[in-house]
């Protein structure tokens, strides 16, 4: 069974060497850049940039294959239903209408719609490599300190650390409860009827939830005893010092972010790039 939540493995690349805080800040800047902009040129530029970084950080395809499949399914579904629900959305946004083909009844494909949907698709897709880089190259132990570093209260940041710490335990407990229920005679095979399976799921969820509640008592006792929450701040064992590489990375991502804003304000005069004018 998979024990770790994210398949983080240390590989000696420039990306892995960056501190978690740097990576989180860069991730946020770049994500906000592509979320803000509806200019396909900007989006593609960021996407190419992040694919290069992906290459540099030597992430293997096998690590991300499943994610790519999920995302593709999502994108295709989204594209289909968007067209189905609102075939004239592009026309509404760009204010012109260039008909390409008449598909059936009211579904007429326009250049505007195609352009709008393509832009949206890349907008969605472009955040994926960014997220993947952040997740797979950041040591989970640095997560909490990085969150704290960008201004999240340390208690909330520690809640995230606890999630990462106890997810494998809870996952294993789920597995164990399910095994020990099976050993005592619970039928978990796929053959069971739907309603039965729903009921069986509850038979495992309920003990899982209750044992988690017990565990919450225990862990909060242990943390209280070791002085958690005593002061307004706390330090982090795994916080790394900033290096010159960190500064460079931060400057680059800030530049990309500001660049996006500038393009919107001065060139596009709005969030959209309109090639039809």
């Amino acid at each position, binding site marked *: 069974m998979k024990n770790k*939540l*994210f398949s983080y493995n240390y590989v000696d690349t420039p990306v892995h060497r960056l501190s978690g805080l740097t990576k989180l800040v860069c991730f946020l800047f770049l*994500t906000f850049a592509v*979320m803000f902009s509806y200019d396909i040129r900007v989006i593609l530029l960021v996407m190419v940039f992040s694919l290069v970084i992906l290459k540099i950080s030597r992430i293997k395809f096998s690590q*991300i294959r*499943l*994610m*790519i499949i*999920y*995302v593709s399914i*999502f994108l295709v579904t989204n594209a289909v239903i*968007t067209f189905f*629900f*609102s075939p004239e*959305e592009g026309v509404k*946004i760009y204010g012109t209408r260039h008909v390409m083909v008449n598909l059936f009844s009211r579904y007429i494909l326009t250049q505007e719609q195609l352009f*709008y949907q393509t832009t*949206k698709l890349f*907008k*969605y897709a472009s*955040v*994926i490599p*960014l*997220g*993947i880089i952040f*997740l797979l190259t950041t040591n989970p132990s640095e997560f909490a300190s990085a969150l704290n570093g960008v201004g999240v209260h340390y*208690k*909330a940041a*520690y*809640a*995230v*650390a*606890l*999630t990462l*710490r*106890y*997810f494998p335990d*809870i996952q294993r407990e*789920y597995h164990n409860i399910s095994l020990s229920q099976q050993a005592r005679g619970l039928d978990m095979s796929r053959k069971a009827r*739907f309603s039965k*399976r*729903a009921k069986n*799921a*509850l038979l495992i*969820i*309920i003990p*899982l*939830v*209750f044992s*988690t*509640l017990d*565990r*919450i*008592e225990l*862990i*909060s006792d242990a*943390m*209280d005893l070791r002085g*958690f*929450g005593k002061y307004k701040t706390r330090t982090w064992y795994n916080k790394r010092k900033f290096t010159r590489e960190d500064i460079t990375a931060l400057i680059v991502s800030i530049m990309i972010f500001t660049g996006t804003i500038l393009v919107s304000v001065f060139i596009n005069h709005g969030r959209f790039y309109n090639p039809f004018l």
Partner: protein
Amino acid sequence: MKDYFKVTTKTIVATGLGAALFMLLFMYVKVPSPIPETSLQTAYGLGAFFAALFGPIAGALIAFIGHALSDAVQYGSPWWSWVIASGVCGAIYGLAYKRTGVKEGNFKGKDILVFNVIQVIGNVVAWVIVAPVLDILIYKEPVNLVFTQGVVAAGMNAVTVAIIGTLLLVAYAATRTKKGSLDKEA
């Protein structure tokens, strides 16, 4: 009202572990619903349960962290509009905190009603208002599409919470021991 938003170590631990449970259910324990191609997200039932026990802050963070991390694991990056909506939803569920007698072992008629009214409001606000608006702002999704999606999601989540959340709270209330009730039997 003041300790409504009080954060103790227990709140933090409940948030961390609650989010881990939320993730587990969010990713692996979907009960197929009678409507084809959809499933009931048991995770929201769990989120509402924790929110009712530990308050709005825990509720909001559990759903937010849980949803963000599961998205990250599955898709590589969180889908912020829906993650934020989840957080809002969890926060509103948390308004049921201290409004029912579940901690004292009473969770009957009126308490069940209060809890469910609150959770339905939470689902409506999160999925019919917050999520669609964010989708439109960020991604310029078609208006009719996002609102249709929102209504379906709100309905399904409300049903899930009504079943799983209520069942969990009832079971929890049953384990609460009353003052001086434990005595050894001969």
